[in-house]
């Protein structure tokens, strides 16, 4: 089956847009476990995008990356996070430094910023998926913002993982995937980082009786 490059490009853009949409859903979501579910959904879209790029371009090593994403980000990490949340019993609403409507507005501005920054370099790309670079940067920035706006350790971790998803989208869409050795290393790092953060939340809970990072104020000037 042969898909014309134009339609292929449109499909990849559609998938990237779905990723971006889940970002907004995460920003708007107040319940922690729902945030984790949304992250798993976003990762599933990422798998779809990567598989699509692999299919359209015939670069088979992207299938490996897509499979690993599915394993690590759709199954393992959400499960670990769910376990952590269960143990912490933090199902209540999230404490936010920025309320939801303002947060969504800021995210909209961040998307515009991302398109503005990448505008000069996107036409230089020759790959059919080059437009996704702007969306990838937007997802990175939104993940960054989520980390600032949320106070719970777990939701900061979700922000970090969203950033990683954005980076992976950038790598897959703009360059058809990084060299395999780099990609494997990045997966390894993300997995270990998530596990370490999980251990931390347990220890923070034991030490502070809370995972609210606003309690982390002992160290000040």
């Amino acid at each position, binding site marked *: 089956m042969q898909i014309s490059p134009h339609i292929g490009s449109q499909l990849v853009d559609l998938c990237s847009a779905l990723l971006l949409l889940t970002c907004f859903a995460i920003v708007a979501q107040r319940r922690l476990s729902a945030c984790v579910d949304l992250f798993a959904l976003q990762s599933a879209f990422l798998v779809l995008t990567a598989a699509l790029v692999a299919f359209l371009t015939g670069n088979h090593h992207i299938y490996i990356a897509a499979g690993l994403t599915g394993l690590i980000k759709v199954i393992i990490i959400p499960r670990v996070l769910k376990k952590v949340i269960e143990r912490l019993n933090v199902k209540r609403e999230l404490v936010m430094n920025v309320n939801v409507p303002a947060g969504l507005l800021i995210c909209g501005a961040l998307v515009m910023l991302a398109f503005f920054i990448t505008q000069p370099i996107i036409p230089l790309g020759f790959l059919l998926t080059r437009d996704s670079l702007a969306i990838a940067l937007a997802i*990175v920035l939104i993940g960054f913002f989520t980390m600032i706006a949320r106070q719970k350790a777990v939701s*900061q971790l979700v922000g970090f993982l969203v950033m990683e998803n954005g980076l992976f989208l950038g790598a897959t869409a703009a360059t*058809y995937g990084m060299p395999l*050795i780099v990609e494997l290393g*990045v997966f390894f790092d993300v997995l270990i980082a998530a596990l370490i*953060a999980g251990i931390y939340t347990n220890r*923070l809970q034991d030490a502070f009786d809370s995972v609210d990072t606003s309690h982390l104020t002992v*160290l000040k000037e």
Partner: protein
Amino acid sequence: MIEVLVLLIAPLLAGGLSLVIHRSALLHAINLASMGLLVAAEIMITRTVLRDGPFTVLGGLVYLDALSAFILFIIGVVGLACSLYMRSYMDDQVARGVIAPRRLNLFFFLFHMFLLAMVIATVANSVGVQWVAIEATTLATTFLIAFWRRRESLEAGWKYLILCSVGISLALFGVVLTYYSSLQVLGDVSAALNVTQLLPVADRLNPHVLKLAFIFMLVGYGTKIGLVPMHSWLPDAYTEAPAPVAAMLAGVLEIVAVYAILRMRMIVDHAVPAAFTGGLLALLGFTSFVTAAFFILIQHNYKRLFAYSSIEHMGIAMIGFGVGGPLGTFGGLFHLLNHAFAKSMAFFAAGNIHRRFHTVEIGQVQGLAIAQPWTAMALMVAGLALSALPPFASFVSEVQVVTALAAQGIPGQWLHSSGGMVTFALSDQFSSLGFTGLFLLCAVLAFSGLLYRITGMVWGTPPEGIARGETWTLGHLPIIVLAATLVGFGFFLPQPIRQLLEEATKILLIH
């Protein structure tokens, strides 16, 4: 070939063994043996590099030149010093019941993984692998920082993990952008992120993409160096980490991150005028230097004092690299070396003081010269060296940086092209004079802040209940050797090290 394998396998093997061995003496022996092998391999690599120039091994995965050999040299020396110091320090902590004996296994395992990650980051040919290794250093060290498991250490470890991981993610975007630009020239090859592939074609890479990539990497790795305004994790982490870990963080890890930026700069400078990267480095360096100099004045905790002094010195080195030219670059590299030696010494002394006085408050430490004469000597030497006074080597390197600054000023094109940021128009001559004046003013501020605090700790009489006198341990050996080296390098730089520094400078200057 064999020496590179030793470099990679020694920490890996030592890390694995650390997990299964339970006798503390044996753990230390393995640690020292692996560090010894590392230094030996490093010396052989340096000899090869100086004789034959840059080379690649392991199918192009590893690339070594004078610059990476120089960084490896610092990793080896500071690592060996830390290992010697840990012998008495860690055993003392176990004896005092601060940690359970079996937690030594975890400590050594993480320490070796930390070393391995830094070695990989230094020898990696691919910019991507280098990123993976630098993120791995974050993961290996976060539990080392939180090792005492007190509330404050957990907080510092968490802050470090989150801030550095986020910073480093931005650097990964820089790597992706670099790959994006290199694909257009090299085509879809898996080696398109290798330095050996990028350098020959660097002038054909797209300048816009590279500029953006460099900014992302500078911010990302700058977080790891602790450049202002990405520095907020650094004082906490250095204060809470066990002394040998703090010495490694301040002495070595920062330098590996600087190395990553310098490597990227070598590539970017081929496509973009050097004033772009130079201007960014110098301005970021200046911000860090000035901010840290003021923060040094208000510190009342001696470990935080040293932490801010780290930010200050990294700022100075960055100014050196940013201003560029043979003198600035040489001074910057030499300053990295001097800072690594002086700062690890300072943290060794801090560890000794903390074990005796049980406080990190400067006001509660007095009469160190009577209570712990050797440590007092180490603290004075480290303090004088960090204040860049003669006859210490850091005086020489700081003078080199400031001379380069006075002669060339901050790379101008960048300042002028971004006219919006610098609203007042300065003639080149005047601006370089102004920057030099500001530099000297802040140097004096940092100098007086640091020395005032340190002399207050050294002189006077010790408080009641503090034991007097100091028994000689293995941990004193690295302190004495480092002190002698710091003075010695000020007068005479041994031929191989001088040659290594000159070759590394040349590599950075070829544009």
